[in-house]
């Protein structure tokens, strides 16, 4: 960005947010503009800071579990899985096979729910109003399964350390299968609405390009990384919760623009259905809770577990000091890291592209600010 003085009258500093509807929460982006052109951006975060990591230090291991749902509230189940896996690693226990399979089904369902919300709001930001209604309609079906399974729709608190608390309800398998059958044609329908639509293509193609090297430099993960051609998915790279048993593909694209990220996420939803089908067909019988005592008191040590959340690599780093409360919990939220790339992606673009790029990064401010 060329250094310029205040006398340079063509430059304009504009605040986008924190109340702007397309910033998906309370993100403030300071834009430096020259007419319509973006010269630089700066993100101001922290409006939703609740001190979750500090709260963890004052709660027992089991008590902190519901709080992680409130970070990425769109994908609460994935958050719960990451946290439970981290504590299980500390305790050196493993969830029984049935619990693992149910976990996989629910996290994949959550991935679909999260991507559906992303698709709906992203399209809405860009000006396509129809998809949001259809997306929320299908998301409702997914949320209904959550509600029936664990009693809450959004902040689910579905998993417990060591396994599951709730056994699946009657007809769970059937409902998941019905959802899978119902859902695949719907993805085609969204594609019919958007993929070839000239306005959609015009707004997304070659917008916010991030190539593979830049992605690695910024530490960007998830669909954003895969859209630039890097075949990296933690479910394959370091399988957890029995993902090695399932057969699925990692969708990748080459250009790394907003349109490719859209295509990657659409394909990911199809793959999620594929995983869910396999998991539900091979759902083993047996216990759902591992050998975990009533009072969770891990030995002194630390553990880091990262999982592939819908938005990217979600990591939990937990340090135990041999008491009932964690000494430190650090969360590596995917949105926080991905947001860094915003400046690189929109520099030189137009103001309207900023909206598209924020949408395509799929950020959730609850997770960024924690």
């Amino acid at each position: 960005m060329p250094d310029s003085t205040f006398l340079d009258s063509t430059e304009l500093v504009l605040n986008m947010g924190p109340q702007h509807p397309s910033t998906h929460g309370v993100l403030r982006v300071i834009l430096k503009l020259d007419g319509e052109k973006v010269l630089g951006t700066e993100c101001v975060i922290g409006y939703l800071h609740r001190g979750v990591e500090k709260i963890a230090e004052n709660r027992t291991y089991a008590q902190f579990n519901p709080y992680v749902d409130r970070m990425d509230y769109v994908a609460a189940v994935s958050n719960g899985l990451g946290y439970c896996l981290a504590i299980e690693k500390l305790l050196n226990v493993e969830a029984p096979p049935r619990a693992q399979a149910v976990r996989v089904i629910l996290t994949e369902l959550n991935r679909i729910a999260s991507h559906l919300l992303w698709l709906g709001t992203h399209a809405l930001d860009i000006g396509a109003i129809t998809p949001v209604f259809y997306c929320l309609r299908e998301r409702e079906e997914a949320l209904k399964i959550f509600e029936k399974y664990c009693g809450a729709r959004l902040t689910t608190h579905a998993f417990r350390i060591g396994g599951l608390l709730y056994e699946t309800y009657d007809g769970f398998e059937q409902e998941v299968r019905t959802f899978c059958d119902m859902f695949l044609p719907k993805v085609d329908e969204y594609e019919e609405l958007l993929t070839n639509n000239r306005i959609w293509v015009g707004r997304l193609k070659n917008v916010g390009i991030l190539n593979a090297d830049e992605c690695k430099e910024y530490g960007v993960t998830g669909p954003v990384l895969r859209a630039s051609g890097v075949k990296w998915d933690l479910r394959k790279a370091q399988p957890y919760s029995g993902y090695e048993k399932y057969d699925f593909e990692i969708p990748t694209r080459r250009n790394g623009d907003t349109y490719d990220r859209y295509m990657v996420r659409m394909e990911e939803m199809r793959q999620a259905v594929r995983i869910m089908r396999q998991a539900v067909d091979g759902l083993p019988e047996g216990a759902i809770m591992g050998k975990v005592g009533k009072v969770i008191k891990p030995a002194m040590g630390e553990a880091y577990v990262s999982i592939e959340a819908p938005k990217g690599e979600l990591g939990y780093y937990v340090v135990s000091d041999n008491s009932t409360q964690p000494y430190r919990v650090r969360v590596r939220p995917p949105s926080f890291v991905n947001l860094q790339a915003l400046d690189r992606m929109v520099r030189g673009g137009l103001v309207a592209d900023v909206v598209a790029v924020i949408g395509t990064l799929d950020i959730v401010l609850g997770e960024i600010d924690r």
Partner: protein
Amino acid sequence: MRNLLKKIFLVDLFQGLWVTFRYQHPRNIYTEQYPAERPKVAERYRGAPRLNINPDNGETLCIACNLCALACPEALIVVGSERNEATRRKELTTFTYDTSRCMFCGLCEDACPVDALELTQDFELATYTREGQIWDRQTLEEGPRPTPYKC
């Protein structure tokens, strides 16, 4: 050539419009007439708390063990108890539950050894006053009373 024709005849736009058109049938339109038509929530739904009473003798099931209060991450349950000199058992006197701070995680419900505390399917927790959010033992046992309007 084909692409050009597609472009001229706006095939992509009509394709999208056809999808929306397919959903125009009244069968595909949902409107829930909420207060008249109540949604059916799932059996396991975690909603308004209830302190169960024994249907046979009307006594509370709660044994005042305080486990729910200890399990709660928000520490919003306060159990008051008193030792009954005749039977030498702890008996419940007061029980307050602050629904305004509750996140309905269900940990208290899991902790209760006698299934006295339960999160029910009732999801209408709105009140007119802030104090109305704090439920005492009577409210928990009988369900919330309508709050009178304060002018």
